[in-house]
């Protein structure tokens, strides 16, 4: 996984950026904009998680893509350019394009989330929401600590059960009740011990001060400029995506007059914002 310069920005900037691109991606079905968003999402996903993981994610969602495209296209009698008739099924070009656009929108949203997860790591998420929701972010960080702890304990319990009761039985039904006993021991042990931990935390004055984070995130000059630029681009794009809706129609005949150049440019700049940050970094390194 490559570390992008954008990931060094303040968590609030990153979070708002992804909110903006995901909302904008879902707010229009104009095929040109959906395609643009897909290209932007793919570029960032490939950059942050590598071609391999990107390909894997796309492959996993091919069935969903096909189901949505076909469910849209096969039972739709609005289009006028017919590709084929087969009894009650009529496939029109317009319906097919509509279905594919709709499914591509879903795929782009999924890809945006993939990059989101690579850039907005758990510690950033907790830093951002720890101030607004201290108890919830504490619970979340404790759950993250408990998942590996439970795995280790589960292994320990399995080893001692094997010594006491013999190996895991071969028969399906018996092995199920063996597993149920393991889980029950694990739950009882962990629950009881966790309450002792909680009492110990309270005795040591937990929660009497504001929680600090391991990584110091500071809101600097770069973040102010970035936030203003993002807000500007988002407002232009949002306004025009809603207005530009009139520029295309699916039914009865598919027609697409390309959207205004200014709109497309501002939307493309917004989508490629992490790469602009990268470019700025590369330029300032060279000088």
């Amino acid at each position, binding site marked *: 996984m490559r570390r992008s310069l954008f990931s060094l920005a303040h968590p609030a900037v990153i979070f708002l950026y992804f909110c903006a691109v995901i909302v904008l991606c879902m707010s229009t079905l104009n095929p040109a904009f959906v395609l643009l968003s897909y290209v932007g999402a793919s570029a960032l996903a490939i950059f942050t998680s590598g071609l391999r993981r990107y390909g894997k994610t796309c492959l996993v969602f091919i069935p969903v893509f096909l189901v949505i495209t076909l469910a849209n296209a096969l039972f739709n009698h609005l289009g006028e350019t017919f590709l084929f008739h087969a009894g009650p099924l009529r496939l029109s070009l317009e319906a097919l394009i509509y279905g594919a656009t709709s499914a591509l929108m879903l795929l782009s949203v999924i890809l945006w989330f*993939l990059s989101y997860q690579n850039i907005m790591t758990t510690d950033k998420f907790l830093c951002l929401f720890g101030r607004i929701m201290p108890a919830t972010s504490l619970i979340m960080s404790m759950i993250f600590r408990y998942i590996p702890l439970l795995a280790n304990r589960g292994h320990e319990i399995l080893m001692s059960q094997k010594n006491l009761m013999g190996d895991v039985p071969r028969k399906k039904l018996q092995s199920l009740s063996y597993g149920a006993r393991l889980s029950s021991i694990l739950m009882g042990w962990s*629950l009881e011990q966790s309450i002792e931990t909680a009492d110990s935390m309270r005795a040591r004055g937990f929660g009497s001060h504001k929680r600090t984070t391991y990584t110091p995130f500071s809101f600097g000059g770069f973040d102010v400029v970035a936030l203003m630029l993002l807000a500007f681009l988002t407002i232009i794009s949002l306004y025009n995506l809603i207005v530009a809706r009139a520029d295309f129609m699916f039914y009865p005949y598919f027609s697409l007059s390309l959207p205004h150049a200014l709109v497309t440019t501002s939307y493309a700049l917004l989508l490629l914002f992490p790469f602009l940050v990268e470019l700025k970094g590369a330029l300032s390194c060279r000088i």
Partner: protein
Amino acid sequence: MKTLRTRIADIIEMCALVAVPATLLWCAVRSYEHTALLTLIVALGSVLPFFLRFESAKPRPRDFMPIVVLAALAAAGRIVFGPLPNVMPVTAIVIVAGACFGKEGGFLTGALAALTSNMFFGQGPWTPWQMYAWGLVGFVAGVLFFGRTQSVSLVAVLAYGLLSSLCYGILLDSWHVVGFISPLNWKSALAGYAAGIPFNVGHALSTVVFLALIYKPWIKKIDRIKLKFGITSQS
């Protein structure tokens, strides 16, 4: 005796829970253009009141430890059974959490299990939906079984497990069907839901098996621990 504050909070929670299916239905009937975006925002918004209420109660660490442990067990169980995507112990554990710690505890366990386990499986637009749906499963389990764990028969719990995991699946598929298929008619909706049937049936059956295995022993242990440590549950 309920104070005015808790009554208002109860009403807000009920409205938040009802808002999601109501919006889905409204969008489906009206064939609204921005359905995918609107319903996603409503699902995200419906989870918030529960967390805000939890924050405003200023809970002590020992009060929320059961939620931590049960949500972590659910997430860890989901990771263990990760290779079989339709075998998820999460639903069963969330039902136990609702039955033992009430409707709020059940909701938070379900929502947090979804949020944290998705850090391993990948976040996506499905995250708010899973948080809402598993939270709802825990909430209704709390309404039905909390305080009655001794008298409710195992068959009733298993029936609820079967029904709730089917509803979970239908709710998650609804976003794809209502949000991305247009025009929505019986045929196209059926085609959309039919694709999810193998997954949902597998999930429902595995939930029943998990519940049959863990419900009785876990309830017994949790009741003992609640008595031993004097844990207050159900706000």
